[in-house]
């Protein structure tokens, strides 16, 4: 991607009651969508739509307004098309897309939902992989001009938190077979997929009983969106919303050790805005 204008921040954080406004503000802080999307680009937005039985208030799936705002911004920057997709582990893609509210929001914004077709997954080499050297990955995600990773920040019983790196598990087949060495394998996956931009939806954060949740009492209204080209830094900042540091999340530590990004929030330019 292009080098950022000198005044743009490395990582942007926006807080406020309007998810659409804070998404725009977080992006503006790091140089705007134009820094990442050029006219004619084929863009894929990858939110978290992991199950089909939770509406977005439960904090288990990405906020539909955040996703729709990104779709609008990309189209505004001249993207040829913007597709939104995820492979849920419970329920069909269609019911999950509908229940999360993302299908309606994306269609209203002019984007397309794509049901991830089994035929377009291929066994793909992971050259930098330390534990896994290949895995079946959705080829469209690797071929697109721009991949925008839009996780929802939440608690996760296996990995402590589910953030940007963890969200990439939605673009592979047999995710249930990563768990024997989950943290390193998430880092390996991140080394392959390398999203262009990571926008962490922390509008609502599921603080316990993740990743599927189910108790509204576990959801905290955080009204925050974090954006960065550096997936590790974005995740590290998101971890602070749970009173944790990036170092305490093993998959983040593994990713940082592999050189996929920085955990040192003190060394980067962070711009925080309130909208």
């Amino acid at each position, binding site marked *: 991607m292009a080098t950022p204008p000198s005044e743009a921040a490395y990582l942007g954080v926006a807080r406020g009651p309007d998810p659409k406004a804070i998404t725009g503000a977080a992006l503006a802080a790091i140089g705007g969508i134009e820094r990442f999307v050029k006219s004619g680009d084929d863009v894929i937005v990858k939110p978290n739509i992991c*199950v089909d039985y939770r509406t977005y208030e439960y904090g288990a799936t990405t906020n539909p307004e955040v996703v729709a705002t990104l779709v609008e911004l990309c189209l505004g920057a001249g993207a040829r098309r913007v597709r939104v997709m995820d492979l849920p582990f419970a*329920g069909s893609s269609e019911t999950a897309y509908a229940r999360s509210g993302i299908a309606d929001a994306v269609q209203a914004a002019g984007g397309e939902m794509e*049901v991830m077709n*089994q*035929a377009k997954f291929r066994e793909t080499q992971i050259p930098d992989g330390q534990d896994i050297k290949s895995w079946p990955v959705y080829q469209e995600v690797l071929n697109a001009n721009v991949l925008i990773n839009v996780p929802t920040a939440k608690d996760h019983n296996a990995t402590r938190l589910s953030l940007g790196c963890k969200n990439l598990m939605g673009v592979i087949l047999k995710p*249930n077979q990563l*768990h024997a060495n989950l943290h390193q394998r998430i880092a390996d996956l991140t080394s392959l997929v390398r999203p262009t931009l990571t926008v962490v939806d922390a509008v609502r954060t599921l603080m316990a009983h993740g990743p599927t949740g*189910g108790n509204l009492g576990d959801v905290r209204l955080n009204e925050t969106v974090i954006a960065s080209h550096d997936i590790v830094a974005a995740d590290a900042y998101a971890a602070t919303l749970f009173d944790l540091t990036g170092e305490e999340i093993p998959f983040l530590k593994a990713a940082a050790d592999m050189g996929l990004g920085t955990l040192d929030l003190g060394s980067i330019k962070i711009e925080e805005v309130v909208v």
Partner: protein
Amino acid sequence: MAIFVYTNAQRPQRFWADLFSRLDPLLMASASLAGRALVSGIALAGITLLLTLLFGRVWCGWLCPLGTLLEWLGPRQARRRAPSETWRAIKYLLLFAILLAALLGSQTLIVLDPITILNRTLTTAIWPALRYAVVQTETFFYQFPALWGPLDAIHGTVVQPLFQEVQPVFSLGVLVALLFAGLVVLNWWAERFWCRYLCPLGGLLGLLSKLSLVRREVSDQCALCARCTHQCPTGTIDPRDNYRSDPAECIVCFDCMTDCTREGVAFRWQVRPANRWRPARWRDYDPTRRQALAVLGASAAGVALAGIEPITQREPATMVRPPGALLVDFSALCIRCGACVRVCPTQGLQPSLFEGGVQNFLTPRLVSRLGYCSFSCNACGQVCPTGAIPPLALEEKQATPIGLASIDQDRCLPWAHNIPCIVCEEACPVADKAIQLEEVEAMNALGETVLLQRPSVVKELCIGCGICEYQCPMGGESAVRVYAPTEAGGFLGALPEGI
């Protein structure tokens, strides 16, 4: 026929899904007898009965989807000599056997009903095989990235909406397909062989048609050309009887009228004046009293034999029923139609073989390894024509246990091999997870000390949906399995008060 294909083709289609089952009086009668309750929606079957009493076997000639299919698949004229007329009695005898068994509480024989046969064949054989063929072809072409543009368009507009994302698998599929093929092949022996000689619903409607009001009457204008005899699909126009037909065998298709040389004059459908109406006479090929008694005896004996099946004493662990089914006398109400199997979004519902004994042959059970009970779905109860699966509201269904998960500690990765996992806990849809985790430190096979989370099932919360068994990364036998709830009383997993 078009309606039937439509109602069967789209898997999520619920509104019309059980239409033909409800119109079928044999299904409704059998379920009501065995279930000891008038099945809701039975009024639709009443329409069929009324039509039959008025006009004869119009169902067979115009409405029955299996009849229509058999008419299309077969030679116009059978080449062999048809079997003896006495074979016509078989359909009546099968009918008696079915009704007596139902009276005695067993619907085992209802699998011979034509609607269930066609439903089952489409659901477990034809539609899945068609999907497999289409998707394999599509996958072949997807090898060439240059084709992805048009392929995606075809996939999005045709393949995905028609076939959805799940490839249905059924171990009975080949058998069901072969049996159906057998029915079709019989058409080469005699036209509409099934309808003529075997169909128990045809038998029921045939008996009623002996009382029908409107019948085919032959006048003295008949040219005796025998053209109608050759046209008749059920071969009931008898040259030795002045080309009259037996109303019980006539399916009112009107084929005889199209080629009649004295059309409109030789014969017509009409109502006999009241003083001349009487029931159609009993034919030589109709069942004799002895035959009927023999079959009734055999049916009763069959029901008695079914009582020897072990299921009458011990609940088998593998019979996990659809949600709500445990609340009713399932086996007595289930008409083995396969509607629930068809709508299940994960295709986890499978027709049983003999896991539950002969009396549960082809009733549905959930095979979690193949498909879990989707937490966001209550479709099966919505489509069940007899209420064997009661229509539960979604929240109710989500609190209704169908089984209990059980972790095999000799197979589960964190328990047996000190390797981290907990996919089962991650997948569990219940808000207060039905799998709890215990953190332990242990040494793995490489000699490293690892921090493990070991899962165990919370009995009070588990609803037996099976997504844990489905997602478990162990191949073959899952390390966590859902068993049918077999404990009596309050040991069943159920949400504690206040949740």
